[in-house]
Each structure stands twice: as C-alpha cells, then as structure tokens.
C-alpha cells in the first residue's frame, strides 16, 4: 500500500505526519522523501545512510565529426535545448527534458546520450524503517525525474509512505500519482484552506481516495472543517498546537518520542486509512 502525504500549502506538517506514521508502524515500512528540493524527513528519522547514488538525466552529446548541421535536432526540440548556428551545435543542457527526440531524428547518428546531474538518492535504515530520499542538485530546475527515481524503490511488499513536496504542480503529481491514498495535511487558516482545495482538486483529478489531517487544529477558524463536511472529506486526525510539540520539532525530535500517547493515534490513523481503501 502506498500512502502519499501532501498538502498544497507548505509548512503544514507533512513531514511530521510522514515520519511519525512511519515510526509508529515500526517494521515492514518504507519512507520515501520525495520533497527532493527540500528533503527534511531524514532530520527526524536519523537513518544511517548505506548507499548514495548519483542520478543523471539523459541529455544530447553531439559528435561534431559526424554532424552535418542539418538542423533537424533543433527543429524537433520543443524546449529550445539545442540550436544549430552556422557550423555550430549548441546544447543547453539545463533546458533539456530528455525526450530523446534529437538523437532519434539525427540522420547521421551524431547525437549520443550524455548526462546532466539531477542530484543524489540516499538509502538507509532506522529502527526498522527503510528510508530513501532524493536531494536535488542546487541549481537544477527539474525535480520530477529525480522523484520518479526515488519512487522506483517502492517495494509492494511493504507499506510505502511518501513525503510529498508542497504545491499542486508537476513535482506533487509525480509524488502522488499511483498512490492508494493521499493524506492531505492542512491547517485551519485561510491560506491552509485555499491551498487544501487545490490539493483536493489534484487528488481527485488523479482519482485517488483522500483524507485530511488538521494540524495546529486549535488555531485559526472553522472553515476547513466546514469545507470538509460540505465535500464529505474525512478528517482522520487533528493535532492541536502545543508549544512543546513545536519546540520538539525545532530540535528534530519526533512527536511519538516526546509524547508517546501519539503512537496509538498514528496507528489509528493507519487503521482508518486501510478501512477507507477497502
């Protein structure tokens, strides 16, 4: 089973829910941090990393000995990542989407596959949790290809918990697609509600069942609850604001370690999700 934890708005508590859920499950669970732009789950899980893998995106590499400067590569490229100017071929690696059009179309076989470094994937373990995250190279614009590589480590024999990035555009879709359930973590504020609606729209577009966690549930107003009721969205957990929780978070401490009564609540959350999927 794959549970993706998303939010729309940033800073609502995705990582808190993902890490505590994983820790509460104990074993036979993997946690994939797909917020590759700003991965944080490892700061709480503290895995010992056993393996680091550098991930590349295929980009064209032109052999100018074979190139006749016919310009077909530039013509097929939708992303302006390759240009032919007189007797020069210019490749703008950062713009390349790795579609393979240029090497497919080149009549001289002058284009081969090079690589642009996207970032790294690190794998490790902590207290029975298999932990994997991606770290986007700073300066790299495209995160979805790296997210897909992280998700290639999904193990269907285990419960997979995915910590998704904020927003609703392509990196979120890459982190949520094909999940069995989307858990949306929100806060009861106007920003939380507005972005929640967008995230609900994304989950519904992908046809994935969803439920809500309301974090800092005693701050703000009641509009998130009213919206959930209107739209018939189940609220599966509420986490009140407590300074103790916020301070523990700041130090990288897990909620279930600081307040052990939360472990049963996270187990209950998992149970409710299982029931909803059935």
């Amino acid at each position, binding site marked *: 089973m794959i549970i993706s934890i998303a939010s729309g708005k940033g800073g609502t508590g995705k990582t808190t829910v993902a890490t505590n859920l994983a820790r509460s499950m104990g074993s036979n669970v993997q946690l994939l941090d797909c917020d590759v732009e*700003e991965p*944080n789950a490892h*700061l709480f899980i503290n895995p010992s990393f056993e393996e680091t893998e550098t991930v590349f995106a295929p980009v064209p590499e032109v052999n100018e000995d074979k190139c006749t400067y016919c310009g077909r590569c530039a013509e097929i490229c*939708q992303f302006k990542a390759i240009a032919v100017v007189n007797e020069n071929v210019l490749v703008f690696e950062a713009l390349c989407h790795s579609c393979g*059009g240029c090497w497919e179309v080149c009549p001289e076989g002058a284009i081969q596959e090079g690589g642009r470094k996207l970032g790294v994937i690190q794998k490790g373990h902590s207290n029975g949790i298999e932990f994997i995250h991606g770290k986007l190279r*700073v300066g790299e614009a495209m995160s979805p290809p790296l997210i897909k590589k992280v998700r290639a480590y999904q193990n269907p024999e285990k419960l997979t918990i995915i910590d998704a990035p904020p*927003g609703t555009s392509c990196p979120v879709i890459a982190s949520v697609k094909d999940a069995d359930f989307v858990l949306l973590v929100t806060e009861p504020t106007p920003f939380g509600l507005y972005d929640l609606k967008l995230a609900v729209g994304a989950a519904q577009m992908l046809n994935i069942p969803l439920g809500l966690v309301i974090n800092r549930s005693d701050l703000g107003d009641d509009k998130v609850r009213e919206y959930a009721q209107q739209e018939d969205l189940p609220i599966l957990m509420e986490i009140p604001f407590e300074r103790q929780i916020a301070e523990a*978070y700041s130090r990288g401490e897990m909620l279930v370690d600081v307040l052990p009564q939360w472990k049963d609540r996270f187990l209950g959350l998992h149970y409710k999700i299982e029931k909803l999927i059935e």
Partner: protein
Amino acid sequence: MKELIVISGKGGTGKTSLIAAFATLAENKVLCDADVDAADLHLIMGPHISMRVDFKSGHTADIDRNKCTECGLCLDLCKFSAISDDYKVNHIDCEGCGVCVYFCPEKAINFPENTCGQWFYAETRFGPMVHARLGIAEENSGKLVTLVRQESKRLADEKNLDLILTDGPPGVGCPVIASIGGASAVLIVAEPTLSGIHDMERVVQLANHFKVPAMVCVNKFDLNLELTRDIENFAKDEGMLYLGRIPFDSVFTKAMVQGQTIIEYNSESKAGHAVKEIWNALSSKLNL
C-alpha cells in the same frame, strides 16, 4: 527600480504574511505573487482584478483515432510512458515534447497548445498587484513566474513606481529559479528549526549560484533561541545582511483570518514591531 523577492526554501515560514506586512509599510510599489502554484497573497490583499489573461504554454499530444493505424511507433518512442496500449494520451504524463507527433507515419497526432492557467492585473488597497493561478497539475510554472515578474516590471515602469515586492515560492527548483534570476535582492525568511536551517542553507546556495544578493531574517525566533543564534552566525559567516528576528506570535494567524496584514490588525504587537524594524533595515539597504 528595485525588485525584492521573499523566499524561504521551507514552506510555511511566513513569506506571504511578511510580504503582506511590507505592503502596508512600503510606498510606490507593485505587488507580485510569484508563488503561482499555491498563491495566497491575494487572500490578504483582496485584489480587484482589472484584467485576466489566459496563460498558454506548451503542448499536449492528442491521437486522432480515425487516422491511427496502431503501428506502435509512438509507444516505443515516448520516454514518458504517456501513451496507453489502446493509444490514448495521458495528459498528465505527456511532457509535450512532440516526438510522437513528429514521427507518426500517418500524421495522426495533433499537438494543441495548452492553457495552463491565468494571470491577473489587479488593484489592491496597497497599490497595483500582478498575480496568477497555475492550473492544477499543470506544468510550466517557471514560465508563468517569469511572465508575472515581467508584467510587474512593466506595470512599475508605466506607473513610475520604484519597487516590486514579490512573494516567492518554496523549494529550490524551477519556479524558485525563475523567481530570483536578475532580482535586486532576495530576503530569506528562515525559521529556527533543523528543517528550517537545512532548507535555508540550500536556498542560500541557490541565491549564490545565481549571484543574487541574499538577506536573512528569522521568524518564530523564540521557538529555539540556540538555532536562532546559529542562523545569525551562519548569515555572518556567509557575509549576508541579517535583518532581525520576529517572535512567534498568534497575531499572524488572527490577522490572516481577518484578511488583514499584521500591521493593519495590530501594528503595536510584538511581531508588528519586529516587522517594522526589519522593514526599516531593508528599505535603507535597498535605498528606498
């Protein structure tokens, strides 16, 4: 003309509340929301939209089943597995590369342009604003960010305004890169948590990579004084201007619920005072 972008790396550190507060304090400015993916600034600014424009960008393949002979070439060529075995294009997976369109021997694949969202010119009680809404699950957020920034500059030129205050997106990827390139400065809103520091360091690297001067302030500083000092020392070591600290204050949430900036809601609150001090330091640095 000066263009200031507020970013953070980590989401939820208070970028939008801070830029909204600055909007109350600054004069002669254009407001710009470059967080097109989950834009929230309008919830405080209450903009009256004077013009809305469709944002068209990129293309999606569409197979004409009347012409398709199911030869399978497109399935083989598609690097994004966007074409199903029954020759339907999954619009979410399609990258818009056009490789299938180019090679289809029957010319059976259409390639219409996408409408990915909308952008807006608006008037607010604090002056003009440019903002946008990217469609759910749409791509090209970087291009939409570039567009709203260009339109903000045009508007500032036209109205003779000398400052653009821009709310940036979280992260370090495509929309953030599009937000900061060529800006006068970025203000990084950090929070004193391990996550906040980790993410701040990455966004500082990004600003350095693109050679944009970076300044830092700390929000919710009293959640962890030790980490607040770590951020202050980090800023010093990196040679960045440190603008000050804002306490954790429920006034942020209360103001947001009322659709107000924290200065409007309670300018005498602790956070209100801290934000005013930060604004003073910032405006003197930017020579406003």
